[in-house]
């Protein structure tokens, strides 16, 4: 039986239905009436303009991390270090801002430099993971994981040490920056149109990069068959390294935006799981860049709606995470089931 569009749709839909079924059961187990719970998620996500703004605020970093990992996935790499790369973006942005905040440079320039420096920070951290892999043979999964933890430790050290607030260091982060250094937001909500535009732009760039450029083509060759790519003339290890750097730059950008637009300071756990979430979105869309915008939006909406669930039914907001994880898991397993089904038939 050939690979039929309907069979594919069938398995995808099946995964979605199964995921909803399981989450319904979980809701029941947790003592919440399922249908009302789903309703409250939807109303929590789209009920008011505040909620939509929250979604957009979450959407931006998620777009960037997803776009970034699509590049490393194309190169055949499991860049689990994205969380750390985003954190380093925040750290470097904070660094630059702190450095220049008391100078007479125009604020817009300072912010710009902060953002650029953030991208450099993310790229450096990703480059470190890449170098460990290319020159040290350290699997990028464990290298990335280790560097994630080191990044977290670095943040905490800075927040409680050299960059601590006057007085005593606290988990709420460093001294917030003066308002002039805040990326302009929509009436003080934390949603920066700049951030949004930049993120969408990056997604579009990545889309065209992977689909329409020689770089993307060569990258894909490296990811699918490194030996053949080499014989075809592609400088393979350079492409691997570059994909790390590019992904790091984009995720660093996300970290820089978190500092300049949303939190206006460095705090622990500033990456908030966006790195890993980006990996999930990438897996769910089967690495097809064209789906990034809607699916990332969906995931961001779930996150925001989940908060409503917490308020109304006293559920933990990680319910959104449960739904997201189950979706990806079932789609993944469904892929395998579909291939087996096609082979047997």
């Amino acid at each position, binding site marked *: 039986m050939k690979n039929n569009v309907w069979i594919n749709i069938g398995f995808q839909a099946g995964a979605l239905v199964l995921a909803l079924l399981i989450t319904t059961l979980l809701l029941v187990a947790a003592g919440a009436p399922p249908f009302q719970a789903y309703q409250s998620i939807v109303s929590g996500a789209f009920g008011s303009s505040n909620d939509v703004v929250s979604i957009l605020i979450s959407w931006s970093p998620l777009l960037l991390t997803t776009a970034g990992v699509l590049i490393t996935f194309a190169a055949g790499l499991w860049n689990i270090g994205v969380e750390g790369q985003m954190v380093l973006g925040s750290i470097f942005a904070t660094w630059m801002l702190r450095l220049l905040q008391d100078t007479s440079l125009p604020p817009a320039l300072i912010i710009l430099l902060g953002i650029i420096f953030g991208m450099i920070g993310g790229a450096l951290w990703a480059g470190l993971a890449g170098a460990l892999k290319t020159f040290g043979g350290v699997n990028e999964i464990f290298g990335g994981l280790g560097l994630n933890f080191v990044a977290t430790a670095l943040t905490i050290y800075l927040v409680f040490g050299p960059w601590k607030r006057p007085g005593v260091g606290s988990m709420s982060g460093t001294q917030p920056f003066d308002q002039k250094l805040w990326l302009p937001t929509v009436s003080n909500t934390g949603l920066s149109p700049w951030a949004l535009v930049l993120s969408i732009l990056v997604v579009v760039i990545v889309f*065209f990069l992977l689909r*329409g*450029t*020689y*770089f993307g*083509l*060569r990258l*894909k*060759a490296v990811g*699918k*068959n490194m*030996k*053949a*790519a*080499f*014989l*075809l*003339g*592609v*400088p393979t290890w350079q492409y691997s390294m570059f994909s790390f750097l590019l992904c790091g730059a984009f995720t660093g950008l996300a970290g820089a935006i978190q500092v300049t637009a949303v939190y206006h300071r460095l705090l622990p756990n500033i990456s908030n799981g966006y790195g890993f979430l980006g990996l999930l979105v990438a897996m769910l869309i089967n690495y097809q860049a064209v789906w990034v915008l809607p699916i990332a939006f969906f995931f961001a909406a779930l996150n925001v709606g989940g908060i409503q669930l917490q308020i109304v039914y006293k559920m933990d907001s990680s319910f959104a995470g449960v739904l997201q994880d189950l979706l990806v898991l079932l789609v993944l397993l469904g892929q395998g089931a579909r291939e087996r089904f096609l082979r047997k038939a």
Partner: protein
Amino acid sequence: MNIELRHIHKHFGKVHANDDIVLNIPSGTIQGILGENGAGKSTLMKVLSGFIHPDSGEILLDGRQVVIRSPADAIRLGVGMLHQDPLDFPPMRVLDNFLLGRRGGIFPDRNAVAREIHDLAVQFDFSLDPEAYVDSLTVGERQQLEILRLLWLGARVLILDEPTTGISASQKDKLFATLRKLAAQGMTIIFVSHKLEDVEVLCHKVAVLTAGKLVGEASAPFKAKKLVEMMFGKEVSLEARHRLKAGAKVLELHDLAVEDIRLRLAGINLDIHAGEVIGVAGMEGSGQGPFIRACSGLIRPVNGKLLVHGHDLTGHSYHVFKRNGVSFMPASRMEEGLVPGLTLTEHFELAEETRGLFVDGEKGRKLAEERIQSFNIRGTPLSTVESLSGGNQQRALLALLRAPLSLILLEHPTRGLDIESTIYIWSKLKERCQQGTAIIFTSSDLEEILQYSDRVIVFFSGRVTPPLEVSSLTTAKLGELIGGMGWAKWTSGRANEK
């Protein structure tokens, strides 16, 4: 144990790998199995040792019909196989390798087993340290370990697949002495090899396989010429060939030495001229692989010099060679040559020297259509390469080569292809020669070597002949050289195997 193979058939898709094999091997015989690559020897041995099931036919051991479902089954029935690369566990100790898989209680008595290993080893004049790690042993010692283990498990049939590749001369002598001793004790030994001299010296009987069929048997003493004739078939009539005028030197090898895990090739000197075709003959594992890869810059030589168009490229990477007009086509199309998941168009786009950031879809498609047409590839520009048949994949690989090139190196360019594809591919290659491209190709098909080469070099056990004019070769002569005979006039001293 007596072995009877009755009418064994095995197909792999359209290929009839074993075609009605009938063979009797009495106890105590050392039975040689000769044949080219692809003749069906490994398939037959896999059937006998339980790795694959025959499509039809029977196997009788000591007169009883048996069904061998798995390798573990085989050893239970007394059939043990020693693979060319012994299936052992390198990071573990000799003692552990011995114990693994043998039935018994939860806590093995390590001391008792160590003693048993020692006693067995002494019988055959082997020296094995039970506490040594297997990855520190030589190939010969690993073989010894495996033989002892199979004996310990009660094997009464021992199948050895190309056992003398990669072992020292003294280890070979010891091995032969062991095999003779075992045969005298009633063990049945099956010795699969391409080395005529070894077969002559050791075996009581020989069976020759060609293209899946058992074409002949002989008993000692053997006539090498007869064996070669049975293996490689009749003479090939060569059509009149235009000898191209020797062009400029494209590749020069000065005292080149190449190393890989098993072999060391040394002292290779060769000059190749524009438009020339050099055929590289020899059984797999004789050294052609490392040689051809060293010539393309994929492997660094350990000694000597390599010049392309007079430029010293020794030690440079493949991409530098590529820039100098050298291209390599691997034998394993899907593992090394083509990218699964990418279309033909994408492959052509990748292979071209490109300018610019964006892929010109229109240009790419036109290029693909053009190449598909001129190489007669059965596929569309949007076909993914894994959906093409073997023959078409090979044509695609060929179509990916840039033009013009100084030197093309091909590994087994027509392996597994139908006649039509083979002829077509060679016609394309010959076109290149007329434009001045030199070609080096390896092949295990003697006809192909004799038909298309201008000069031939033959590899055997890490040794290589100087280039021989193809007009001076016959199938018989070539077969002899591949089997290790007739080398006396070039070499003194023993093989360069480690």
